[in-house]
């Protein structure tokens, strides 16, 4: 993997008006291209302030912010240009929703980019479909639930097709299903070339997703690197108001008690299960690439063979719910199927065409925790 710098801060310092102590104090970090990055820290640590620097909305009192190794310019035109490359989705959707209707709102960003009307409409439609809100396109945003408004503000950002999507607490206030769906969308966008940076204090969620973390504590950066390095220092993570993810804590403690090395580190439920119960009789996995051409009787025929069926990808999810189809795992599909497979069940994951590599990647990641998984890829 190339370690190209995408966004970088060098010794940035920032004070909010009237504050004597800085909200960011000498923060230097490099967010690398293609590396899934999470910014961690307690409430008030400086995460949101950092984000406002990354898209040029706020200029540091001192220090430099660089995008693709070029220092940001704070001229009006350059700022506008940057915003089309680096989109920030705020924690509170109401700070970001302006449109009269859901569709208007999703069109706002692309319109501002000066795109032709056809393209604006097309992008807004696609983005609303991805977040599952196309059916609500004519509604007034105020009538939407909090979770829906949250997804609408995300759609507005995706519609701009930014190079980098920065999300501040994307899953806060969402129920588990919506949170997992959102993480799946993030994975899909990332796979299709959009770089994703998110801030969160959900350490368990970040542990499953991120390649690298930057940790802020009281306006200062205290760690950059892989997650295990941070949590291995329990005093450091505890002092930042963060607790080690349950998976990490359980794995390292048990490894120490058994006198084994903690690596490989399980980051998902099936990985932990595989490590805890090695040598189990495993089932197989069929990855079926959805062309959106199957019905309930097809799924029932798989179930009749004793197979557990899960899904992955926004298109497949849309197809399943539009046709009222029933599967075993509508969200968290891969992880649930992998755990079932370890328990000897044969499983099927129906996924979007552009998700096959993601699914295969997750299957191959299991190889670190036992025998490689027996799987096939076929069309629906």
């Amino acid at each position, binding site marked *: 993997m190339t370690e190209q710098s995408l966004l970088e801060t060098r010794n940035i310092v920032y004070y909010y008006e009237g504050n004597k102590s800085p909200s960011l104090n000498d923060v230097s970090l490099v967010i690398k291209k293609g590396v899934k990055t999470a910014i961690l*820290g*307690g*409430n*008030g640590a400086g995460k949101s302030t950092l984000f406002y620097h990354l898209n040029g909305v706020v200029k540091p009192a001192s220090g430099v912010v660089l995008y693709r190794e070029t220092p940001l310019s704070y001229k009006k035109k350059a700022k506008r240009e940057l915003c089309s490359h680096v989109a920030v989705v705020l924690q509170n959707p109401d700070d970001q929703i302006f449109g009269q209707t859901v569709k208007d709102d999703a069109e706002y960003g692309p319109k501002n980019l000066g795109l032709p009307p056809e393209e604006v409409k097309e992008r807004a439609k696609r983005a609303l479909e991805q977040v599952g809100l196309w059916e609500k396109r004519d509604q007034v945003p105020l009538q939407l*639930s*909090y*979770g829906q408004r949250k997804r609408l503000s995300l759609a507005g950002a995706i519609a701009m097709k930014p190079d980098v999507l920065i999300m501040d*607490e994307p899953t*806060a*206030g*969402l*129920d*588990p*299903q*919506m*949170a*997992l769906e959102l993480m799946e969308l993030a994975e899909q966008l990332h796979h299709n070339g959009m770089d994703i940076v998110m801030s969160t*204090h959900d*350490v*368990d969620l970040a542990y499953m997703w991120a390649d690298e973390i930057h940790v802020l504590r009281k306006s200062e950066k205290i760690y950059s690197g892989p997650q295990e390095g941070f949590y291995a220092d329990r*005093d450091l993570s*505890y002092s930042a*108001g*963060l*607790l080690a993810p*349950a*998976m990490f*804590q*359980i794995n390292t*403690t*048990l490894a*120490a*008690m*058994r006198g084994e090395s903690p690596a490989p580190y399980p980051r998902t*439920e*099936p990985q*932990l*299960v595989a490590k*805890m*119960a090695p040598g*189990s009789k495993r089932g197989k996995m069929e990855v079926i690439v959805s062309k959106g051409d199957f019905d309930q009787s097809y799924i029932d025929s798989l179930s009749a063979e004793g197979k557990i069926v899960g899904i992955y990808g926004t298109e497949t999810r849309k197809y399943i719910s539009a046709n009222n189809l029933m599967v*075993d*795992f*509508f*969200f*968290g599909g891969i992880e*649930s199927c992998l*755990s*079932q497979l*370890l*328990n*000897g069940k044969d499983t099927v994951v129906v996924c979007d065409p552009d998700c096959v590599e993601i699914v295969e990647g997750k299957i191959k990641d299991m190889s670190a925790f036992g025998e490689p998984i027996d799987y096939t890829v076929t069309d629906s």
Partner: protein
Amino acid sequence: MSLLEFRNLTYSYNSRQKKPSLDNVSIKVEEGRRTAIIGANGAGKSTTFYSFNGIFKPNAGEVLYRDRPLVYTKEALRELRNDICVVVQNPDEQIFSSTVESDVAFGPMNMDLPREEVDRRITNSLEMVGMSEYRMRPSTQLSYGQRKRVSLAGALAVRPKVLILDEPTAGLDPQMSREVMELVDELCCSGTTVIISTHDVDLIYSWAEDIIVLNHGDLIYSGEPEGFFSDAAKTASAGVARPHTFSVNSYVSKIRGKEEAPYPRTSSQFVAKMAPEGTVGGKIRLIPVQDKAEAVQTSGHVGVYGYAAKKALKEADISADYLFDALEMCMQDAVKGLDSVLYCDATMYDMAKERIEALAKFGVKAEVVQ
């Protein structure tokens, strides 16, 4: 005895709704039971809360408090709300006054208590949520987490018999979340019945004795959590994720051909269950604190649990390693064979002792010493 009860309750916000927000729901909450309400967004959790405290009057069926149907007169409802307090998810819907003090005073003032009593309650509630030093601050200058704690203090000042918390940890970082749950433990130990709604199934699994699960206005489960989570597909169809400790224990037990019970609900219990046989646990020196604490010699970590203990340690200038989630942290040390010291509010002593001793059920005995 049931403290709060729904009998065939149906409620719709308006007549155009295709499906009522609560549809023929019957549930019971027992006094002193730690009860959680879970379900996806829009399942009917908030409607349930507002039906409990009489803000919503059911279209059909009834609500009972201490076995008596609610009376929806102004007078009766006012009295009811001194007993049953709801803290909503968004603190801004609950904070009205200009300063923290006047905001927390709002509830007790409405109860026509003497001024000194109101004052005492404000001091005490702000202490419990760790916001004493912000007493004179304007509410608008507070951060989200601080506002959330002020809205909680406002409810505590009423000293309700039943405290209903809607997403008490949403938007809070891990430290603050654990601090809120510690406060909840404290309230439970002093006789308040606490009901919590949340999306954080991992957090709630370590706390709740009973869960009530709603899905699109229907009651789909009530009882011990394991009875619900054991059906993976049913859990998923309700839009609810399974707690990781439950799920991993379940799969590992099945694969190994062992009983799933006893069910570990915390990391320390999980590790204890999976630990090599013959693992000897560490000792936890549990020190009950009324209002004074004395320093002790130890080579292990020192934790502090409960707000009175924290205050006493601060006054005695004793430093601690574990300032939040300390009971669990000390138990994690114990299953690794490490000794530790835990200062704990006297009211929470029995609960802490019971939880530490419960580790033996999972295979590692951690001794409590005085």
